[in-house]
């Protein structure tokens, strides 16, 4: 067994400190130590994207990083994308409107990847959206409703910026 390491992360705006095994992946640390279960275990090898979280704004496969490696970071999961009052963000509303979740298991990872893409600010083509979602597998939808949702959220974001 590896030694215990104290790690502090700000998860969805909440500061969490846990003393846990230094070998714990960020995914296991979040799920088993911090009780944050929206990042999912899907493959443990960084292929499926179900465990994707934002670490200081960048999408990361949380099964491939140790929690100790990102000590002090800001971590955002799908739950953290909601508005401060708990309501759905524009991206989440677009997922809702386009039926982008079926079984929903890939959805938290899909959402944070999409959020990072939209935060880039550049207007993405439909093909670029597909490229951006390449690392997040979905077995239910055939992706189209997800691509539709990201595209719609992007349109809305662009319209919002234009009217500002």
């Amino acid at each position: 067994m590896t030694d215990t390491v104290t790690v502090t992360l700000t998860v969805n705006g909440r500061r969490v400190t846990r003393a846990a095994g230094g070998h714990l992946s960020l995914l296991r640390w979040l799920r088993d130590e911090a009780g944050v279960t929206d990042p999912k275990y899907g493959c443990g090898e960084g292929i499926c994207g179900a465990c994707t979280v934002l670490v200081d704004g960048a999408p990361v496969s949380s099964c491939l990083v140790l929690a100790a490696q990102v000590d002090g970071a800001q971590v955002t999961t799908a739950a953290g994308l909601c508005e401060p009052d708990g309501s759905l963000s524009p991206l989440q509303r677009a997922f809702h409107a386009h039926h982008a979740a079926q079984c929903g298991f890939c959805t938290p990872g899909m959402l944070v990847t999409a959020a990072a893409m939209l935060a880039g600010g550049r207007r993405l083509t439909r093909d670029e959206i597909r490229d951006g979602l390449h690392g997040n597998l979905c077995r239910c939808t055939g992706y189209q409703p997800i691509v539709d949702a990201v595209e719609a959220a992007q349109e809305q974001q662009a319209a919002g910026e234009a009217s500002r």
Partner: protein
Amino acid sequence: VTAAAGEGPGIRTSKADQLRVVGQPLPRHDQAEKITGATRYAGDLALAHMLHAALVRSPLPSAAITRRDATAARQLPGVVAVLFGEDVPHNLIRVDVPGQAVQVAALQASMEVLATGRVRFHGEPVALVVAESEDVLAQACDLVEVDYQELPGIYDPDEALAGGAPAVHEHGNLLSQWAIDRGDVDAAFEAADVVADGVYRTQHVDHAYLEPEAGVGWLDDEGVLNLRVSTQVVEHYRDVAKILGIPEARVRVIAPYVGGGFGGKEDMTVEPYLALSVWHTRRPVRMQWTRQESLLARPKRHPMRLRYRTAAASDGTVLAQDIDITADAGAYAYLSALVLLYSSVHACGPYRVPNVRLRARAAYTNNPPTSAFRGFGGMQVVFGYEAQMDALAHRLGITPAEIRKRNALTRGDPLPAGQPIETEVLLAKAIDAVLEAAGPKPAPSGPGKVTGRGLACNLQSYGRLTWLNDSAAAWVGFQLDGSLSVRCGVPDIGGGQASSLAQIAAEILAVPMEAITVHFGDSALTPLAGTTTATRQLYMSGNAVCQAASQLRDQILAAAAAETSQPAEGLRLEEGRITGPGVSISLPGALVTCRRLGVPTEALATFFGPKGKPAVRNLQSGRVFPDFTFGAHLCDLEADTQTGQVTLLRYIACHDAGRAINPRSVQGQISGGAAQGLGMALLEEITLDHGINTTGGLFQYLIPTATDLCDIQPIILESGEGMGPFGARGIGEPPIGPPAAAVASAIADATGTRPTTLPITPERVLDCLLASPYISPGRSSAAAAIPPGTEETG
């Protein structure tokens, strides 16, 4: 078929009922929780003092177990238990027809919970380890000592059935066989103008749902064993009770929202092991399979070798089919006999065939077991019968669309096994719909590219085999404030199963969707509704909710009629009120009246599917399934003549859904099913080397990514002819059937040679190009104009 006002694009209805809620593309009620990450899946639950459990699995595909020793493992601090087969009260899992109270001799199957003397596939469970933490668990599993003596194995189903093959089981390697003999096949071949002959091979496919198998178990205050697991079948509580030797009433299975099923969670996965761990330790336990063990050891789709000989007249009329099918059942029976039965019944496709000879068999091998997977044997055969239709069309110089329309089943036509089609078949309309939506075939994007178009149709049963006396129950009750509770044991595996029930209840009881709560998937607290398999939940549970809600409505209207001295026929339930000539009572008021008059404000209904008599081997006994769903898919693709790389350009999938209860959910099933079928067509294969599963992870097992697929355009036809609520047909499985055949047709169109083995990898596309009389690889050509070929290649 007329387009009614207000319907969304892609829906063509011939029904003009006045429905308020059914037919609306409403957001499903489970969406909000799923997109805020709040949904708690089976593996997300953590209980105080919870232990962790894992399996030690066989590293060999065929071996005798010579020694098992858990001494070292048990000595590791933090290890709570190590169990072998001898520690299991009844070390036998029934793996025949999940969730069903009926046993059918031809379908019976079982296997050891933990292997004791012999292992028959790579990954077979041998020991169960329970520990305080996941870290200790991993170490302890490595410390369990099991010695094996390798035994000869057999890895090909045809070889398994040849004389002298090593026996996987004592009683031999033939697991199951079915036959159909209809008409005079030999005479039909004599009289034929054209005969097509082909052999087609499908591969081991994994469900690859995003959520690997998981669950948490605990004993509650009443001593009931609770298992909250990712499953399609809460009725497995019965199988768990048998293994533990305790009354069925002492086991409860709860199915939370499931992260994908596709048939892979129809058989038990973690349930027996979780149950044993809890029973033995008396503490809460979690079991979470890794992706690697899910790929390694959970049953796959049956690989099949399909030999088709098809006779036709010069006008394209199919005269006879002579079909021979061998399926690889792997090491244990599971649902193989049933899957093979589906293949047999569906083997001639959505076409009228007066003379049929079919011989189908499933053989044991030392490969991974194979069992349920969306399409369930009814989909492998599409790859065969659609290739035959293209071959005939090509020989006769008629279009693929024309030959299919000419032979399409219509109401009253019997399937080869004797069952007549009782509902209207919109196959020709589906073909026209995809062709019209597609427009002209795309031209190649540049030099070194060829494009092709493929068309494929199918039929797929919905509802379970009539031999199983299938039933589903549902309870619907008003609360005193007028809100509504629906209780139904359906597991919701992501298809919107629970939400559709709410929509049906909302329609009948005029309650807003927001005022409805659906309680689902609990074997103790919700009326048993059967398995979420076989495309049966909307059909079965939907009808049960329909009946219960109608009964409840009639009870309330009768009470209101008695109270107001009005005839009940003149009263209506409208949003929040009972209205009629001179009558307007609030719903809560009417509910109070019901209580005063002794009229229940709830109703329980059980819907029974049609029943049929089991056949032993020869299928000619008539009705086997409740009904079928029909569809047509069209695929346009481009192939690179140097690399064999295929790019999907357009995919259109059309099915008659009878009535789309929620068009969004139906579109989701069509697009998602097509996507999963395209994965099987182009990418996916569990690779085996003499029974050793060499598929190590999702980096090897390639399911389609967002960039592998093009937009998939779903088209919904609504005949209103289905046997489900409001005329709905089942739609969960049907869309996975046609894609592999549609892709193969398109490759044939592009290259002049048809691939006959799945998956159609770039190498196999290159083989087609090399075999093509029309194209030299690496060169562009006028291939786009060449009609589909019929030659066989690897």
